[in-house]
């Protein structure tokens, strides 16, 4: 059996794919407004609800041309309707070197593998309800960006992009994050998949949330960070800063767990204060657990 992510199509384990049925991608900013689709929208596109006519441009599909109007006016017009599902979901994947960390108990299943799986799950949800979805890979040697789109071909582009993604380097500097501000529109859904160890990532999230973007985050932790099961001498190496620390695992366990739990609690408080929905995912858990926390029935009920 291949490791997850070696083939383009298998980011989502079959068991998880079966459990994705009752999940729906929701945005609190679209709640309460009426519309044909799941989300309210003002943008134009193909759909049921007529919005306007516009002149034919090369490249428009022939079936979109209103032939009756052509008979009357001898010009090509294209019917445009309100788009039913105008929600754009941006999947932000932290591709810094710390994401390559994996558990000794399950080699090959790194934080980045889990992030890819989660991203593929969310893309699958968006595809099912007709939402657009795009991908941003964040790394200090350049932010890779896949513009949002809908449809199966967009999903294939998305999975292809995920497949080539590797974890290295550090969290990008604020200048490099400028495309984020240029491309992510107000009301868009932003899901950041990261370990949350970089202060920069929390910064970006709070600022995006303050700028009326719907921000969600899944903090991906390894089981070793949760339990610290080390015994004996270890040389702990931080892949991003290159720092090293020698120590006896058993001796450091209690203090690390206390400090790390405290740090996570503080981070959660910060995210809550900014109105950012967050979930924690540990590498030994099933992949749909954080999605259920973010998009589960409790939140989806508001759409019923």
């Amino acid at each position, binding site marked *: 059996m291949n490791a997850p992510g070696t083939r383009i199509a298998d980011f989502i384990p079959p068991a998880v794919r079966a459990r994705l049925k009752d999940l729906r991608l929701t945005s609190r900013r679209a709640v309460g407004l009426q519309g044909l689709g799941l989300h309210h929208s003002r943008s134009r596109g193909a759909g049921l609800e007529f919005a306007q006519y516009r002149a034919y441009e090369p490249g428009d599909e022939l079936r979109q041309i209103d032939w009756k109007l052509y008979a009357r006016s001898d010009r090509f017009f294209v019917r445009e309707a309100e788009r039913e599902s105008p929600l754009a979901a941006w999947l932000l994947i932290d591709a810094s070197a710390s994401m390559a*960390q994996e558990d000794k108990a399950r080699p090959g299943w790194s934080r980045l593998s889990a992030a890819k799986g989660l991203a593929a799950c969310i893309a699958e949800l968006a595809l099912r309800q007709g939402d657009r979805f795009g991908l941003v890979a964040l790394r200090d040697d350049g932010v890779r960006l896949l513009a949002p789109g809908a449809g199966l071909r967009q999903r294939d582009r998305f999975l292809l992009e995920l497949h080539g993604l590797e974890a290295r380097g550090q969290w990008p500097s604020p200048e490099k994050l400028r495309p984020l501000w240029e491309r992510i529109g107000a009301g868009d859904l932003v899901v950041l998949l990261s*370990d949350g160890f970089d202060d920069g990532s929390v910064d970006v999230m709070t600022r995006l949330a303050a700028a009326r973007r719907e921000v969600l985050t899944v903090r991906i932790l390894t089981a070793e960070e949760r339990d610290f099961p080390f015994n004996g001498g270890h040389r702990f190496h931080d892949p991003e800063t290159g720092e090293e620390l020698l120590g006896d695992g058993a*001796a450091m366990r209690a203090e690390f767990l206390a400090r790390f739990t405290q740090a996570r609690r503080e981070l959660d408080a910060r995210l809550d204060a900014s109105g950012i929905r967050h979930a924690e995912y540990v590498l030994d858990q099933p992949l749909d657990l954080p999605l259920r926390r973010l998009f589960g029935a409790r939140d989806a009920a508001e759409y019923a």
Partner: protein
Amino acid sequence: MSLAFLIPAAFAALAALLLPLLIHLARRSEQRPTQFAALRWLRQKAKPRHRIRFDEWPLLIVRLLLVALMALLLARPVLHGGESHTPYVAVAPGVDVAKARAALAQTQARWHWLAPGFPQIDATPEAANASLPSLLRELDSNLPEDVTLTVFVPERLDHADGRRIVLSRKVDWRVVPGVMPAEVAQTTPSPLALDIHEPAKPAPGARYLRAALRAWQSPGQPAPGSVKHFAWLEAGEVPAQVREYARNGLTLLLDVDAKFPEVSAWTPLWRDEAGSALIEGAAYGRGRVLRFTRALTPQAMPQLLDATFPQYLRDALEPPAAAPSRVPSAEHAPLTGGPTFPIAPRDLQPWLALLIALAFLLERWFATSSRRAVAP
């Protein structure tokens, strides 16, 4: 009961105990590199613990045990004072055990046959011409001083020594009716006869042989019927017919000039005072061939004129018969005053070797079981 070691210096081998300890010492210097992104919340302990630790305790203990046992084996452990102090009853073969039991009031005693190996009284002793005094002396030296020894013997004792047995302890010497088993192969000495062949011209040595022959025979005794000894006093090669006699069981006595080329290795049978052989002999077929090494003249061999010549010649021709060794038991009770010997301590090496084999099997079982993770 006390433990002693014959080679205490071998305990230096206990230094080998360090080997398994070193093998099992947890390799603490090895720092496994670990990727850990949450290093920010990890704080170095001021003083990491440097306690000596060992991997795989059960295996280590078994290996230490194995090494210690081997050192113990090298030190040759013996056990003093492990002997039983219950009274010992030895029964000579031929004695009725039921009568012996009835004769002895003591209830607690070790009953054994007075036979080689001292088998239990329930077993049947093997028939053997073992010397009873020798067995008694062996028994006496192997028993601790304070053990009382009771010996049951039949009325008549075979294989007795020439003098009374002298033991270190006072022996309760009980004579009960019974007969010792007959000897396995008892041969009665037959009167010796020698047929002398001399050439046409009378040989000078023949008269000495005849004189010896006459000396052997007592006056009233009839001449023996069958002749088993044949003296060949002719020079030159011995005829094939005579050689054939020798091969078929005859003892052939050759003159010094007679040639017998088929025998090359001669064993001296009679030496003079200077140590040189006078009569040599060798086996030939079922019989024997003997030869004089000197001419049968008083000039060459002065022993011919000695009075002991017939006796020596007879000894060379036939091995001397056993001395009489049958005595009435009542007259042959052992005397005290013999030397006492320290009891040989019990050697523990076979048991230790068994223990080592067990420990080794256990060690292999632990070391090769599939539950192990890494191999130190």
